[in-house]
């Protein structure tokens, strides 16, 4: 779909969302969410990322109005306090993991539902539904029943249904989780283009870090009901706030090192260093460890496994002491199990956790 057409004919307001001390304690006394303060800028796509049970879905449901925060918490859309409003009066668009399409209605009837509820005149309704179906490449499916659609088509209908009412914010609860890998990639691209084009404030919940990195203007990494870090995908990837974030996003190696007087000892090598002193734990991404010769290498080890991934070969290297390291080598690398290798570490790309 050409972006220019979309921006001209269909552009939505960019309403900021503010959460103030929004916590959630469930009836049994279980704390699902520690009190949370967060501002989501107008037009921004923010992704809540974390393992199951981290509180990301609870946060989304509080924004949606499907759960209310514990007393004292407030949810604001722009200047309006919506804390007391149920979901049907918040004017949000919501997309569910299980689609939540109405099996008793056709595709067009599903999309028209929100407009009917809003008492939009029949002619206007028909035109807007048609426009929306075209935007989502669903025109030919208008008369189909939901059980005649594939998973990807269903989720596109769900998006169309949520957007046609011009909601103030769009909320997506793991929308791609039920799809197979290939569909997931293509629909993710489609959602990305859609969100950029519409200019709507979007909140996206996922446990998939790839989705989070691709879609989020900012990512909120959550663990055990708390926010572990808020930042752009690059910040989260290159400057993780703690070990949990580092491990959750991408692959992270851990190296033991000792620093003293401006130098850092790793394995047999001594490198210039400006980080903390004493015994440190170093975090290094696989792509920041380079294969080297015995003369210029810092750390020796034996290849324990080599996995050919096409564009690269992922090696698991066991050093003389310490945990195994994951290293990316060229795809055409001939290295295999049992080979002796040397690794170089770039101290500028190493994160130290004291």
């Amino acid at each position, binding site marked *: 779909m050409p972006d220019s057409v979309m921006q001209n004919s269909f552009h939505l307001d960019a309403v900021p969302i503010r959460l103030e001390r929004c916590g959630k304690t469930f009836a049994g006394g279980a704390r699902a969410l520690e009190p949370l303060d967060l501002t989501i800028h107008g037009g921004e796509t923010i992704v809540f990322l974390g393992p199951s049970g981290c509180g990301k879905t609870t946060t989304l449901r509080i924004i949606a109005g499907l759960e209310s925060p514990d007393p004292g918490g407030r949810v604001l859309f722009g200047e309006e306090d919506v804390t007391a409003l149920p979901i049907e009066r918040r004017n949000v668009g*919501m997309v569910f993991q299980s689609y939540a399409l*109405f099996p008793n209605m056709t595709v067009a009837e599903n999309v028209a539902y929100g407009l009917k509820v809003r008492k939009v005149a029949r002619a206007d309704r028909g035109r807007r539904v048609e426009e929306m179906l075209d935007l989502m490449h669903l025109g030919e499916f208008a008369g189909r029943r939901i059980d005649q659609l594939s998973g990807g088509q269903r989720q596109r209908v769900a998006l169309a249904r949520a957007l046609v009412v011009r909601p103030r914010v769009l909320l997506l609860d793991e929308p791609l989780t039920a799809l197979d890998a290939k569909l997931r990639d293509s629909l993710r691209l489609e959602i990305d283009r859609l969100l950029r084009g519409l200019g709507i404030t979007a909140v996206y919940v996922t446990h998939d870090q790839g989705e989070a990195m691709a879609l989020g203007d900012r990512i909120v990494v959550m663990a055990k009901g708390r926010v572990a870090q808020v930042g752009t995908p690059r910040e989260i990837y290159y400057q993780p706030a703690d070990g949990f974030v580092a491990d959750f996003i991408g692959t992270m190696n851990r190296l033991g090192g000792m620093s003293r007087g401006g130098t850092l000892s790793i394995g047999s090598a001594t490198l210039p260093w400006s980080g903390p002193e004493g015994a440190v734990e170093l975090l290094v991404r696989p792509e920041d460890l380079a294969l080297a010769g015995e003369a210029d290498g810092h750390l020796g080890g034996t290849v324990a496994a080599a996995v050919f991934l096409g564009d690269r070969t992922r090696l698991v290297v066991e050093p003389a002491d310490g945990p195994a390291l994951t290293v990316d080598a060229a795809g055409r690398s001939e290295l295999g199990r049992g080979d002796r290798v040397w690794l170089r570490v770039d101290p500028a790309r190493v994160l130290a956790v004291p």
Partner: protein
Amino acid sequence: MHSLSNRRGWGFWLQLGFTLLVCALLTVPMAMSMLAGLTANYFVGLKSGLTLRWVEEVLRVYSGTILLSLQIAVACLACTLVLGVPAAYALARRPGRIARLVEELLMMPVAIPGLATALALIVTYGSVGDLRSSWLFILIGHVLFTLPFMVRAVLAVMGSIDLTTLEEGAASLGAGFLRRFATVVLPNCRSGILAGSLMVLTLSVGEFNLTWLLHTPLTKTLPVGLADSYASLRIEIGSAYTLVFFLMIVPSLILMQGLSRRGRPSV
């Protein structure tokens, strides 16, 4: 294996014979009874000739009971729809021990003998106004007896669809509770509601245990009339009466089978 699949052994014929015997055991009396209703003279046998005289006689004498039975069945259906569908919805949306307990309690009228339920009703409400002599008294008994079947049928369908998420989807589009219930909940439970409705109609039309105690000479239903005619009139009339009853009940039974074969709606 080879000989078994090619040549049917004595085991096959034994099983077939047994199955046919059981079928005959169940169907022959029914067929005999209906045939008796069409026979000019039962004691002489079929050679006395076939006639519709007895059926006409039944329709003339007992049309009142047939109409009352239909009236009660329709009213009973209306009551179980109004009470049972919301009850099933409440049970489906509220998981937990109390909901399960209520579900079990709802089955009680089925487990307790109809006569006992009827006695309890008479003892409790028998002296309330004109209720005892009204057809409404029978209606109360029928609703009590058939309600669990409606609740169970609707609950089964509600349990097979993700009602909570469907409703959340409708709510996110701005639909309030009543609108969600009418446009999303009810249409998607249609197969359960239909199955429950046919069940209630069939059970109410054929109900005898409760009705026998609850009825008065002026509020006789079809099954009660049937018992009367067997006890006091010619066997041909009783049999013709059975025939009429079958003609009323079989279409709804066939519909019910058809519904259950079509299965649950796919989500």
